């Protein structure tokens, strides 16, 4: 096992450049379960937010469990294409400056034979992101390795080899399109105990993984004093609260009645959705204040 990891590290050492965040950037996090659940714990977002220093950032988590570059999980009643279009309209509305994309964990189950389709789909996704939101930067993130937790849980060795293959392809893809590649697969490396199911971080898992994610983005990590402070804990809680409000706004329950084919029955209630906007704005002010206090620590 170790030998394999070493081999892979040698293969993927490429010059690391950094993602450039600017003041007032809107940052979209896009991906499947790993990204989606990050909003519930807040470690990942808080770590990035503190590490960019005084620049004010707005994070919008568009992660969706089970999603793929084709939009499989976002489609509701129609084919994946509808999910892809939904994402397109979300991005057009949010107009993010930076889009951090992390796909590949689901696709890697298809192994080498699925790779060409995945890469082609990823390229379609990239051009859609560019055309719908014209972000300043798109960051391609490689998916984290899976954990083998011991019997009766399955050995994830084979899956990790496939993930390595997909990560490598993502690195090439980033090069081809002159995009930032954040090699989270490598910065996190082999781990145990960050997940309950071998795939998805627990709260503690995110806490451990967040600095590695920042490292992959190529930006210097906020100080330990800052990240581990009581202020940072409050900041994280405020971040989670904001994420919830955004979730209710962006991905409301009862979509069938609010905006889809039963909207003639309850479509009147769609007017409640914009009522979340001022609540989100308030929450973001609180986040800014807490961030300032946290950053005042050395």
């Amino acid at each position, binding site marked *: 096992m170790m030998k394999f990891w070493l081999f892979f590290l040698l293969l993927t050492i490429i010059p690391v450049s950094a993602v450039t965040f600017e003041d007032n950037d809107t940052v979209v996090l896009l991906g499947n379960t790993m990204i989606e659940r990050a909003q519930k714990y807040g470690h990942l977002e808080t770590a990035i937010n503190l590490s960019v220093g005084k620049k004010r950032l707005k994070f919008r988590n568009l992660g969706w469990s089970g999603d793929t570059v084709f939009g499989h999980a976002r489609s509701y009643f129609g084919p994946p294409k509808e999910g892809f279009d939904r994402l397109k309209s979300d991005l057009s509305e949010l107009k993010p400056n930076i889009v951090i994309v992390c796909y590949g964990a689901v696709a890697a*189950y298809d192994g080498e034979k699925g790779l060409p389709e995945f890469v082609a789909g990823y390229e379609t996704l990239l051009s859609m992101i560019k055309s719908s939101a014209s972000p300043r930067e798109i960051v391609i993130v490689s998916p984290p390795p899976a954990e083998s937790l011991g019997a009766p849980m399955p050995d994830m060795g084979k899956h990790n080899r496939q993930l390595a293959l997909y990560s490598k392809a993502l690195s090439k893809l980033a090069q081809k399109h002159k995009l930032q590649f954040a090699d989270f697969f490598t910065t996190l490396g082999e781990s145990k105990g960050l997940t309950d199911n071998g795939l998805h971080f627990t709260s503690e898992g995110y806490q451990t993984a967040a600095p590695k994610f920042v490292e992959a983005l190529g930006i210097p990590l906020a100080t330990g004093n800052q990240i581990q402070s009581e202020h940072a804990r409050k900041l994280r809680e405020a971040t989670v609260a904001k994420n919830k409000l955004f979730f209710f706004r962006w991905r409301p329950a009862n979509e069938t009645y609010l905006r889809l084919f039963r909207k003639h029955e309850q479509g009147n209630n769609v007017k409640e959705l914009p009522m979340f906007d001022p609540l989100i704005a308030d929450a973001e002010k609180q986040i800014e204040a807490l961030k300032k206090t946290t950053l005042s620590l050395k």
Partner: protein
Amino acid sequence: MITRLLLAVSLTTLTAFAQRGLKDIPDPDPVKQAATFNLPEGMEIQLVASDPMIAKPVQMNFDSKGRLWLVSSGMYPHIIPGAEENDKVLILEDTNGDGVADKRTVFADNLHIPTAVLPADGGAYVANSTEIIFLKDTDGDGKADQRRVVLSGFGTEDTHHIVHTFEQGPDGMLYFLQSIYIHSHLETPYGVRRLMGGGIWHFRPETQRAEILSKGLINPWGFIFDEHGQTFATDGAGGHGINDIFPRSVFRTSPGAKRIVDGLNPGQPKLCGLEILSGSHIPQKLRGVLIAPDFRGHRINAYRLNPEGSSYNSTRIDDFLSSSHRAFRPIDVKMGPDGALYIADWYNPIIQHGEVDFRDDRRDHSRGRIWRVTFKGQALIEKKDFTKFSIKELLAHTISKERVHREQARNELRTRKDVLPELSAWSSELTDDFSRMQAMWNHQALNHTAAKLIKSLVESNDPRYRAAALRVIYHRHEEVTGATEIIKRAINDKNGRVRLWAVSCLAQMPDPDSVPTALQALDHPVDKTMDFALWSIVREHQAHWAPRFEAGKPVFGDKLPRLIFAMKALGKPLSLESIFTSVENGSLTPTERKDAISVISQVGSPGDLSRLLKLAPKEPAILEQLVTAAQIRKLQPKSGKGSLLSFLDSKKSTVFASAAKLAGLWKFAPARNKLVRAFTQAPAKRQAAAEGLRLFGDEETIKLFLKLSKESPDEATRAIAVKELAKIAPDRAAASAVTLLQQDKAGKDEHTLFTSFLQNSRASTSLAKALEGKTLPIKIATLGLQRAGTSGRPPKDLMAALQLSGKLKPISQQPSSADMAKLIERVRTEGNPHRGETVYRRTDLQCIACHAIGGVGSPIGPDLVSIGASAPVDYLITSLLNPNDKIKEGYHTTLVSEKNGNAHTGGLVGESDTEVVLRDYAGKMNRIARSDIKNITISPVSMMPAGLTAGLREDQFIDLIRFLSELGKDGDFKVSAKPIIRDYMVLRPHPRTVDGMGHYGTAVFAEKFEGYQWQTYGSKVNGELLPSELPKVKGRGRNTWGVARFGLTQKGKVKLKINDTYLLDLFAGKKEVVLPEKGPTVIELNGNDDPQYFTLAVNSASRQSEVLLEIVTE
């Protein structure tokens, strides 16, 4: 602050809007509610907990200390902006044993519409909208302090469909369900698992494996294992009573389902929750009975299951209990640790949130009740704290005669360490099948496989144990050496259910031998369930067996039925040679032959179709198969089309019709003259000839139709010409259509002209243009407007034109809230439900053309069996006036657009790789070739026309609403569980009966005469058949007869009670049953499930009083 204020203001406006009809809110006092129960002799009910101790219980389960856990959601149906997530997991305890909960613990209070809870594994699993979480109290203060996500990716497209109904199987797995609008995407270590629409999952915490057990059902909120490990579900929106859940079963509304299985009791109330009555406290006669709440009807239904073939037969028996309280909403039922039955009462005058506004003020958010049912004179079970028992004691309890003890003990075992050595020693001492089955499950519950026990149970004399053992193999075949041998024996088991499990096991084993082995089941009786399972495995396993077959290796031996079955299931030609040989040399039985021909036409190449065509002179049914091949598969025989000419001379109208269609589909020019001749000269062949000609679709045909549509002296010919022309050149057909419509004084559009012009937007626009400046009779214009309004994409231009030319007022009516309040009051005070039922049954109103009540009637629209108990009066009024406002899930119109611009609307009945089948407003099935389809969408338009009630007087409308509002409530309009004959086929008038009566008397009606035409007839809600409603079949003189046929599904001797035999004759087959001259009587008959076996003739000229037939049960 400003935001909050704004919010408060807007919510007040909302509530003000929703106030209408608020008068029907019952008294919430639990003591008063308790007095409304209608309980059978010996049953007692007691309040366990009520608001404010608990609110809005959704699901409950007991833990191994005997405490009741429940999830409570005041947030449902939708979070209010700015509100906190504050739904709860509550634990209730009865510390002094008086049956009343005296202690409540809030285990968690930060949840978002939690829909299920299961205390297990040292904490509790909770369904929390998009996720399933595990909550744990690690410091012993009674509150959860640890929260982990177990699974995420559940859809929330509708909050009364989100992941729900937790049930722990005897196998230690967590089962959970989701409903029709939900799309879930779970990432598991074994890959992503996606479930679109309803279905049932199982999940093993130890391995984190989540898999789908079954797909479909509309809103299934009940799921249960029986004592031998078979699974059943109920559906809160489906109306098929009990559903038999076996692996890979697919039910109604599963997206993309090519085939489905039905529930066991079509036409039953919709049910939420499910439990099997068990244990020594339950009276003997009720043990084993399945109970399920009909939450719309404020009652709990009961069913009894009996094994039948590979599935079950389910009979509804008397209700378990009922209440007249309009807010009593039983939604979960569970056997308690004391042997009593517990009921979770959602308590709400309003149910669900599709049709009634999220923010409707009548919606209750704070109340809820738990009730406890006990039986006088029956000792309760001892309530035990299983956490205090040793492993040895726990094991002993897993073979207790009390099911609740077995389950709690097994649940507790999962939390203990080092159980296996003791378990295995203990198991080896067991000798009876029942105990061994429990021991087998104990192993499985601990994620281990007891191969020895499995092997002993597959040898049991009792098929229930053999089936249980196979279910374990289904999940763990890799850990049972010799599993394949066991399954190979089981596929030829003498019990159908065991054979079904063998097929399920094989479906888990991707191997070239799996399908050939499974198809051995065809050597035994094959019922619908088995047929589905075999069809399913053949398709699922195609990649495993078909290549070997295609490589010419023997797969099915010399068993032709297996080959035919496989090819039909697959819809692909693998090898037709052996099938052809057998058809041609006549070695097949008639059924096999029919199957063989149909498989060739379904999968064969053009060359194969030519060979088939050669067989048609002996087997004319082949022609219709070739029609389907041409329409759906777009394939024609390579040669031999000339033989068509002789078929066009056939005297048989069916043969001619098929041949005419083929001539057109094949564009076979030599046949054209024969078709023209038939069209103009042979009235019986006219329609078919015209269709054949239309399929040619060329200019010559268009000119012919145009000429005839104007010049033919015969109205029917003109109409047919117009209709057919509308399909190919609507702009040239429209003027003649208007002329015909202007002459249609009856206003019934008997030629269905509207349907033809609504198929295509080009056609509807042509008709609209042709109507410019023209006048139509009101009746026909109204009908046209109804038809147009219910077509998937209502054509605005045509609707406007119809309104103008018919001088119609807009038909959609939206009463003001003041008018609505007045109407509701009048329904309550003046409405007469009995008169209303007569209005409902008027054929011109079309209610019965689309709706059934309790399964009696048409399947097109929703069954109205308990609509009154579930829907507020204002909802009913709006539904009738503006059907598009309220559409029930599962009844949305599907709109299929073809590449050529044609559009079809209707309910989606089925789809496959090659075709889509829709049922239209008239119940007609339309098959559309997949290759012709541009897109398929869910239409926001109801199939129910607006303005149906426009012709009613106000008092009739009020009576009708009153009738609908009584449906399902306690009283005259609740379909009873009694076995009353409700479904009849009635005879339409036929000329031969006048003479025939003279010679044979009423026996003439019992004859199997092919010329008789029969139509369906449903009884009144109470089961009565009204002679005056039956078609008047002429007898001698002024006598008329109502003639109705029915079947009896019961087997063997059946006792039938007739309310009054006055002027009534009855025939069993052709044999007359001797009846007394008048008065009530009970006769004995032999059951026969042919729905036309028994014939009843009543003199409708002289007898007005109702006829009621009821089967007498002991």
